[in-house]
């Protein structure tokens, strides 16, 4: 008896591809796979350009500052030195703030914390570049937005300590802020779920005939969530005045960006399939972040619709206080990151153009440290986690606008009479 022929039986066996990062603990860090264009080489199309005419941009890299700190090319936003110093100050303050609160976690003063070390340029530049009444829909890694807009540091710490003065009444995990008056939408722990809110908010602004635009943030790992696809679809269909930002810091906890799809394409290039302009931008270059954001914002404000921007950066710290990155990547990988440190690069630029000195920088750091120390003292005078709490009645407030009988009865179980 002869067996029937099986189609393809003589072909090679199938194999399943599992992406792996270029370096693991003990290996030499290797970023040679990243496409890194030189500063000033990418063209800057007019904002009225059709998406179809700009399809090389999502594969390139918009950079303004070169390795010497010189600002080059058409994307240079030509910012006044005082704006640059303001940005530098906010970035330094963000880093010092995060280092301080990270230590506070290690000292048992709070339960959890996350740093944005290495990514400060993104939140800070965008916070300063957009209008005060625009709204950002942040991830948990853009604390620089609040600091750049002058949100009270002591309130941030009160939130992190969940103490009696916590603006969110002890209901939220540390750093899941909400600051409406600072254009900072309520954070939630489930990733990606607010990317579409940014689009809806922008559609509402367009419906009302206003001038306000929205900025949505998502991490590169979270682009795998359906929310990413839905937001891009709605943004494209309704030409929503929204800037959609992917902060590609190479790591989603322990998973490298290849697990999210970066082996095959760029995150900016995903815009092409939706008919949206995509920009791939040096996220550690304050000037490039600013320029790309304004370019996209101007498109949005002139009814030209949404733009997807990938900010290429590196998560220099662990994912959170609960994470140990040395378990999955080289301990010194951050030092090999080819786009450097955003603070050092802007500082170098300011010094190069004669608008800053090492002395002034050291003086500013000392001054900011003092401000932060005072704010921390003020918050700790109220209390750290568990030493001071919002009134327990706050647990029952705000489920609905008015509590229904269940909540009234249940708070009665804790002895609270209405």
């Amino acid at each position, binding site marked *: 008896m002869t067996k029937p022929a099986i189609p393809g039986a003589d072909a090679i066996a199938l194999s399943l591809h599992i992406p792996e990062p270029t370096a693991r603990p003990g290996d030499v860090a290797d970023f040679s796979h990243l496409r890194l264009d030189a500063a000033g080489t990418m063209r800057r199309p007019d904002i009225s350009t059709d998406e179809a005419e700009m399809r090389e941009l999502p594969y390139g890299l918009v950079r303004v500052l070169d390795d010497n700190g010189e600002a080059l090319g058409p994307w240079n936003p030509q910012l006044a030195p005082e704006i640059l110093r303001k940005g530098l100050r906010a970035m330094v303050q963000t880093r010092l703030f995060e280092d301080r609160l990270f230590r506070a976690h290690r000292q048992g003063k709070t339960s959890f914390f996350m740093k944005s070390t290495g990514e400060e340029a993104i939140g800070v530049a965008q916070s300063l570049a957009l209008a005060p009444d625009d*709204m950002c*829909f942040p991830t948990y890694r853009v604390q620089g937005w609040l600091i750049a807009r002058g949100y009270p540091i002591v309130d941030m710490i009160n939130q992190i300590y969940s103490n009696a003065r916590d*603006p*969110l*009444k002890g*209901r*939220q995990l540390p750093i*899941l802020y*909400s*600051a*409406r008056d600072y254009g900072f*939408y*309520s954070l*939630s722990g*489930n990733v990606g*779920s*607010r*990317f*579409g*809110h*940014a*689009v*809806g*908010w*922008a*559609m*509402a*602004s367009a*419906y*009302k005939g206003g001038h306000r635009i*929205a900025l949505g943030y998502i991490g590169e790992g979270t682009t795998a969530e*359906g*929310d990413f696809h*839905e*937001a891009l*679809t*709605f943004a494209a*269909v309704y030409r929503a005045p929204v800037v959609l930002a992917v902060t590609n810091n190479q790591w989603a906890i322990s998973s490298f960006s290849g697990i999210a799809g970066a082996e095959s394409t760029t995150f900016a290039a995903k815009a092409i399939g939706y008919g949206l302009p995509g920009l791939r931008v040096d996220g550690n270059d304050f000037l490039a972040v600013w320029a790309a954001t304004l370019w996209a914002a101007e498109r949005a404000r002139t009814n030209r619709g949404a733009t997807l921007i990938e900010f290429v950066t590196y998560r220099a710290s662990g994912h959170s206080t609960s994470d140990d990155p040395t378990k999955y990547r080289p301990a010194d990988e951050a030092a090999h990151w080819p786009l450097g440190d955003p603070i050092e690069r802007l500082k170098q630029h300011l010094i190069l153009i004669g608008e800053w000195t090492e002395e002034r920088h050291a003086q500013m750091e000392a001054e900011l440290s003092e401000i932060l120390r005072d704010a921390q003292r003020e918050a700790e005078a109220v209390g750290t986690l568990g030493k001071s709490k919002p009134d327990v009645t706050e647990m029952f407030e*705000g*489920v*609905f*606008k008015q509590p*229904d*009988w*269940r909540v009234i009865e249940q708070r009665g179980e804790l002895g609270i009479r209405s």
Partner: protein
Amino acid sequence: MNMIQAINSAMDVMMARDPDVIVMGEDVGYFGGVFRATAGLQAKYGKTRVFDTPITECGIIGVAVGMGAYGLRPVPEIQFADYIYPALDQLVSEAARLRYRSAGEFISPITVRSPFGGGIFGGQTHSQSPEGIFTHVSGIKTVIPSTPYDAKGLLIAAIEDNDPTLFFEPKRIYNGPFDGHWDRPTKNWSQHPAGEVPTGYYKIPLGKANVARAGEALTILAYGTMVHVCLAVVEEAGVDAEVIDLRTLVPLDIETIEASVKKTGRCMIVHEATRTSGFGAELSALVQERCFYHLEAPIERVTGFDTPYPHSLEWAYFPGPVRIGEALKKVMKD
């Protein structure tokens, strides 16, 4: 008006009153909805207020939450409640929690309309009653009307409400009350007093039940299509039951329920949804906790079976007059 016209009228009234009310969903625009609930609204209010969306429930609700955060009052439609699951994350993690987690900085005043329930040979994905999934979530209100008059008044109240509300529409009774006798000619709303619906603005407060039939012998708790089935069973059995149409599941009108069961001493709960962990379980627990010393018989539940909703076995699944009648005899024994 039939229930569809009443629902259409509620949206019309609210759009005329408040420019922040917008309607969105799959096929709701030019076409006017697969059940015609949004017919004529786009022509009257324009494409930017009544518009079709891509087919993504998560996207529809996510965008609506963002619009609500801006200050609009969106009324998104999910074409069938069976298709609400892709939006679960947005409803549970976002809409329901936004006010609480932001300490009131942002709110989600959205009203999600969705046809639900069986009795129409809809099979597994056009018949489900998922209300129990949402009543379990703190921060969401759940409303289910049983008449055109209530549907309009409750929908207006839901749209005006500043909290996220799920508005489940029993599609079996869109065109007429259904008493469960599938083998008899169907009635339409023009022959029913609750088919009389004012054309203008009125509302029925959320959280208030309606005593659909006053009685002394037992209390029947029901909502949606089951109100009409229960009323028919009671008349046929000649039992002096008090039939309470809950209308709002969250917030629940516990006072009316408690007063009724304490008066009658007996309680039967009827819903289409599957039994285990369904809303009936919560009702049963509440009655047991609050009326234990007044109860003269165990609380009875008549519900859908713990199976997916079948197609050809529709009338064996649907809690109809036979099953409800048997439970009625059981709860009235002694």
